[in-house]
């Protein structure tokens, strides 16, 4: 799979720790919602570093967008979030991954369970659904530390006001934020997933993405609730990732 030239067209702050890089990629072949890319940065002395990032944009978007969360002491994410600006260049290849993907027209309700920046590949699915004017029953549960850590906050509120069931839980907040008055303020649990629905046996396609302890717990609870383990697709962000 060949490396392509990528140039940053725009940098969009999302939270205090995350930015979206809007990219022009030479000869980009297109992607499916849920896929990721590898990027490779080259320092002036030839030193290179590679990392993987999920694609945030819908396949319909004119430009490829990656949302990068800054990892303390990270080698690449600190550069991308603190330093990178429009006009900067690196290499990119992909799209990568064919299992953790969703596209309009698939049967069954779409259930998305995100922890923190695990939201990125899942928002690509919701953006694709909207761009394709798909009517699939879609539900999102996002767990974040505080309201200020919620990626795409305005967009999620707008989706929630539309036809997507958007539920939020904040693990380090005392009260729900104004635009999500029904937000929970605790760690993910069985009652939350039950309320998110739909019930097991409805053919839901379930996508879980986040840090490992979150994914382990969410996937375990979904199976315990009675969802078929084969309908639960997981993707994880390790504690590293730099």
């Amino acid at each position, binding site marked *: 799979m060949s490396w392509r030239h990528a140039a940053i067209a725009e940098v969009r702050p999302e939270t205090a720790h995350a930015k979206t890089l809007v990219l022009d990629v030479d000869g980009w072949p297109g992607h499916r919602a849920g896929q990721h890319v590898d990027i490779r940065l*080259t320092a*002036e002395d030839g030193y290179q570093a590679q990392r993987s990032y999920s694609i945030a944009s819908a396949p319909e978007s004119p430009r490829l967008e990656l949302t990068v969360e800054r990892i303390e002491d990270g*080698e690449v994410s600190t550069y991308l979030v603190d330093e990178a600006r429009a006009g900067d260049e690196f290499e990119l290849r992909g799209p990568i*991954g064919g299992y953790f993907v969703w596209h309009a027209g698939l049967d069954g309700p779409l259930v998305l369970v995100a922890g923190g920046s695990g939201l990125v590949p899942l928002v690509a699915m919701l953006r694709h659904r909207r761009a394709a004017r798909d009517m699939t029953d879609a539900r999102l549960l996002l767990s974040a530390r505080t309201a200020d850590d919620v990626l795409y906050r305005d967009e999620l509120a707008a989706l929630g006001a539309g036809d997507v069931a958007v539920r939020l839980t904040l693990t380090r907040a005392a009260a729900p934020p104004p635009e999500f008055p029904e937000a929970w303020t605790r760690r993910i649990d069985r009652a939350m997933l039950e309320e998110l629905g739909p019930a097991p046996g409805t053919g839901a396609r379930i996508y879980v993405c986040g840090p490992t302890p979150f994914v382990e717990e969410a996937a*375990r609870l979904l199976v315990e609730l009675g969802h078929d383990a084969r309908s639960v697709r997981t993707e994880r962000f390790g504690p590293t990732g730099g």
Partner: protein
Amino acid sequence: MAFTRGFRGRRSDVDPARLPPGQYETKDFPVLSAGPTPHTPLDEWTFTIDGAVGASRRWSWEDFTALPAETLTVDIHCVTKWSKFDTTWTGVPVSALVEGTSPSGEHVVAWSDGGYTTNLPLADVLDGKAWIAHRYGGEPLDPEHGGPARLLVPHLYFWKSAKWVRGLTITEHDEPGFWEGYGYHNHGDPWKEQRYWSD
């Protein structure tokens, strides 16, 4: 290739001879898997060698863990770019399990609880190259990391080291496994950076 303005990177003091191209060292042990972690009770657990082997062989957990095991310390390399050095495993060499069968194929499919599969050349799992590991760092292998037992093939990218492994099926034809069917490299040698199908 254009340089990335302002990127200096963090030169680690890692011995470059230990780090395959495109990898970086991590001290953590990240977890990757495509679905929920299965929890098979040990009294239902078996390990099977079957396929093109003449008579198949099967072990219960009790019999399996009574087999002579080896303890080894190796570096592991994940296709998602992290490498972890000096990981210590205890497991049964695959050669010992295949011994006593008559393989008539040159390929292997490792299969796991949860439906995961991965394919390897038989030669890549014999002669001290692969183990069925059931202990990590001297402790029983954690389910998150593939316990009760996982395949350990440290010379290939770590997706080949199937978690929750329950058997090896010897095949006459090469049959792509789970990730191999989704665009990952058929062989997966980290030193040749064989990440994706066309690498």
